[in-house]
């Protein structure tokens, strides 16, 4: 039976009584219940972008939550159909702008699969290292903002301190801090210099202690535990059915990580583990992301130790950009660079779906090529969008104050959700 209908019956009782007396609320022995619609957003600090939620409330309990998306819709898929493959790389930066490197990675992998080219080993190592650095940066961003949303201000300053070190390294690597466009089809843009490697080693030396520091702030914090344990619980069966991926799925104990299931980069050459949760609540997802940061540090360490020397771009002038230092001094290289940058390269007919483990979940690119230098269709499978599909289901029955926790637990970025 619909609980709202029941309430209307209760309200009707007022009509039977003396009108004057009914105005004297609260009436002894009678509870007056009204359902309320609450509009949250599109501008709200905890929505991590522009997201509007309409909440049906019964007191402070959420009866129904309807997300209204699309405030950040820029038509990336449509734009991609009219851009050459190398022009799409900067577009992918703007999907999940917190972790732009992994978006680049996901896209170039799909194109490479379509082209059937193998990337040089050193490039694969650099790609893996950079993707894991980005995962740490993304999870640090998440941890800081999630704690901030819940009310713990300090963690934000701690995590952004470490994120800043990583962003400085990205700046050294490719000149940008947020929208990096570092990956290229066939390799990476620039060499990873010894300075970055030294800095990275230094960062990894102390990073594990830093993670412990965050944990001291949160793990024993009564408010944090009270506001994350048992909040937004989803069972493994439901999580799979809703198509959830990444830490949200693994929080429910489902062992699905694309880095293990369909290894790419050099993930199959290094040793690491997939952390799994048990209860499927916000606390478990927090624990998984913290643990993933440790595992990422482990992966980076092993990759740095084993990184071979060699080229960072595939030896195929049809696809690859010429080396950067030559472009500035050599006329032929400049023309070559210009041709690839403006006209792009031809991709054979075919279609491919390529999934990558982004910090948020499975980021897939489905590319349909009919030959030529532009894709006929470039579909992006955004994890945040699909996670929003489960929002109503996961928010029902919780308190209004938990809404910000539930946004946060998906690690949602609206740039990716709305595309």
């Amino acid at each position, binding site marked *: 039976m619909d609980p709202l209908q029941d309430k209307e019956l209760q309200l009707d009782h007022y009509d039977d009584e003396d009108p004057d007396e009914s105005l004297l609320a609260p009436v002894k022995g009678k509870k007056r219940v009204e359902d309320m619609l609450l509009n949250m957003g599109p501008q709200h600090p905890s929505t991590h972008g522009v997201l509007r939620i309409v909440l049906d409330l019964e007191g402070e309990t959420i009866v129904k939550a309807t997300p209204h*998306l*699309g405030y950040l*819709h820029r*038509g990336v*898929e*449509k*734009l991609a*159909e*009219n851009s050459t493959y190398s022009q799409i790389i900067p577009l992918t930066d703007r999907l999940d702008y917190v972790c732009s490197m992994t978006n680049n990675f996901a896209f170039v992998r799909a194109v490479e*699969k*379509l082209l*059937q080219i193998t990337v040089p080993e050193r490039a694969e190592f650099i790609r893996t290292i950079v993707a894991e650095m980005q995962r740490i940066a993304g999870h640090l961003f998440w941890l800081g903002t999630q704690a901030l949303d819940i009310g713990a201000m300090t963690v934000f300053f701690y995590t952004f301190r470490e994120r800043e070190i990583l962003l400085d390294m990205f700046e050294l690597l490719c000149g940008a801090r947020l929208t990096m466009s570092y990956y290229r089809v066939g390799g990476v843009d620039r060499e990873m210099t010894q300075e970055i490697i030294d800095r990275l080693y230094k960062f990894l030396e102390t990073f594990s202690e830093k993670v412990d520091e965050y944990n001291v702030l949160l793990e024993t914090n009564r408010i944090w535990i009270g506001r994350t344990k048992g909040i937004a619980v989803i069972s493994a069966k*439901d999580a*799979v*059915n*809703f*198509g*959830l*991926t990444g830490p949200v799925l693994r929080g429910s104990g*489902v*062992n*699905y990580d694309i880095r293990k*299931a*369909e290894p790419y980069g050099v993930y199959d050459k290094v040793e690491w583990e997939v952390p799994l949760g048990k209860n499927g609540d916000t606390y478990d997802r927090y624990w998984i992301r913290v643990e993933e940061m440790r595992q990422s540090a482990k992966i980076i360490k092993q990759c740095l130790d084993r990184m071979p020397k060699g080229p960072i771009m595939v030896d195929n002038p049809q696809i690859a950009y010429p080396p950067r230092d030559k472009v500035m001094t050599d006329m032929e290289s400049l023309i070559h660079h210009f041709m690839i940058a403006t006209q792009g390269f031809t991709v054979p007919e*075919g*279609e*491919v*779906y390529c*999934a990558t483990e982004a910090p948020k979940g*499975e980021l*897939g690119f*489905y590319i*349909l090529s009919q030959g030529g230098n532009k894709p*006929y*269709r470039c*579909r992006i*499978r955004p994890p945040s*969008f*699909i996670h*929003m*599909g*489960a929002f109503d*289901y996961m928010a029902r029955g919780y308190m209004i104050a938990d809404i910000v926790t539930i946004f946060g637990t998906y690690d949602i970025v609206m740039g990716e959700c*709305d*595309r």
Partner: protein
Amino acid sequence: MHPIAQKIQEKLPEAFVSANVLLGELTVSVKREKIVEVCRFLHDDPSLDFDLIADLCSNDFPNEEPRFEMVYHFYSIEKNHRIRIKARVPEEDCTIDSIVEIWQGANFLEREVYDMMGIKFNNHPDLRRILMTEDYDEGFPLRKDFPVEGKGWRDTFEFLQQE
């Protein structure tokens, strides 16, 4: 033929159209009337066990008949295999059955396909536009005949009409 395609053909011969493997990815084309039966078989059969809906999207081929194509990507966590299912949808009867009752995750994805390509889903619980505004009436943006610069207020810019 790929063993999974073989299974689908044996179990649902009236739904099966064709199958091919390209770049290591299996694609099975089926009839659109039978899409729910095919999906239910993929989801429920213990040897296939496609429990995760990876993606759901559509393609537009204006010069072909039928014009639209639905593309489903499924993945099995247990068996670690993927499949791509395709079904053609004609323009004059632009509908296909919804698979939300099999995968809840298809809900938002089908709404997006409806929003972007204009394919309607029968038995969908809440078929509304999702990324565009609900009163958007300029058509379906991802169709090939929709201009990249959009329709509407941009056409009123005088400098765009010059040339």
